[in-house]
């Protein structure tokens, strides 16, 4: 398990520096113990301090967004560097196609949701100058593997020039989760008009009892 629940919520801001230092030290130690394989990583060669910084920023961003979880055990291999921003855009657009319809129903067709989304993101981070990374949840206990989880994405748009990161996440969850047991009950209720019949509740025991009642003089 790479992600664990955080106990001390709210102390995040003050611990950023400490965490950055300890993460950097850990990565350097990992490199010292097994130097092969660190020449390349999704965030760049970890021998390079700027690549380690990028990794630390990605981890800190996740820690900020999900203060109930601790992502400090994540390493470079848990992230992925995305290629062209256009392909990222296509992926996100595909995932959020249904949202576009809800937006249009609510606010009209004048400015589609995806257009507003990309314009706003561009204003905030200048997408052309960004490196894009993604984090795919793969471990139990992180915020993206809840019951009923259908899909999710976590993209980091990192603008080195502006020294800014824009994090965009979305996840879809089934509306029927947790309703399975209830729906069984509903089915039974529908059959019996809102309550379980005495026969259904007692089953075979009732048949035995009915034999007993037949033998009795009533």
């Amino acid at each position, binding site marked *: 398990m790479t992600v664990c629940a955080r106990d001390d919520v709210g102390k995040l801001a003050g611990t950023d520096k400490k965490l950055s230092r300890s993460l950097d030290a850990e990565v350097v130690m990992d490199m010292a113990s097994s130097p092969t394989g660190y020449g390349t990583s999704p965030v760049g060669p970890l021998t390079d301090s700027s690549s380690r910084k990028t990794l630390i920023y990605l981890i*800190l961003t996740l820690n*900020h967004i999900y203060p109930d979880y601790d992502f400090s055990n994540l390493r470079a291999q848990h992230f992925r560097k995305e290629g062209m921003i256009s392909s990222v855009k296509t992926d996100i657009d595909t995932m959020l196609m249904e949202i576009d319809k809800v937006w249009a129903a609510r606010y009209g067709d004048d400015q589609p949701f995806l257009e507003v989304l990309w314009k*706003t993101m561009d204003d905030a981070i200048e997408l052309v100058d960004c490196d894009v990374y993604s984090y795919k949840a793969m471990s139990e206990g992180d915020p993206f593997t809840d019951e009923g989880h259908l899909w999710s994405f976590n993209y980091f748009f990192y603008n080195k020039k502006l*020294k*800014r990161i824009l994090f965009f996440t979305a*996840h879809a969850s*089934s509306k029927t989760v947790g309703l399975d047991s209830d729906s069984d009950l509903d089915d039974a209720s529908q059959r019996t008009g809102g309550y379980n019949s005495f026969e259904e509740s007692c089953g075979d025991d009732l048949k035995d009892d009915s034999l007993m009642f037949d033998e009795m003089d009533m």
Partner: protein
Amino acid sequence: MKLLVHHDLGALNAFLTAVNVGDYVVSGQVESYSCASRPIDALRKQFVKRGDAGESRVSRARVARRGNRRARETRDEEGLTNDGLRAR
């Protein structure tokens, strides 16, 4: 890292809290952070602080000079009165 307040991103976040699209619900979040070790406003604060410090140093010197002048003036006045007394 510092969360950057961006009005339009905030509006998007409000919309993305929970969007019911029929069979499922989509929830999203979009936030921007500054990775700069000293964001511009912190630098500005520091500059203002330094400016205040400079000003206070100047004003302290002024006060000291004023004090010296007053002391000199009183000494002179006293000297005059002493001279007057001696003359009498």
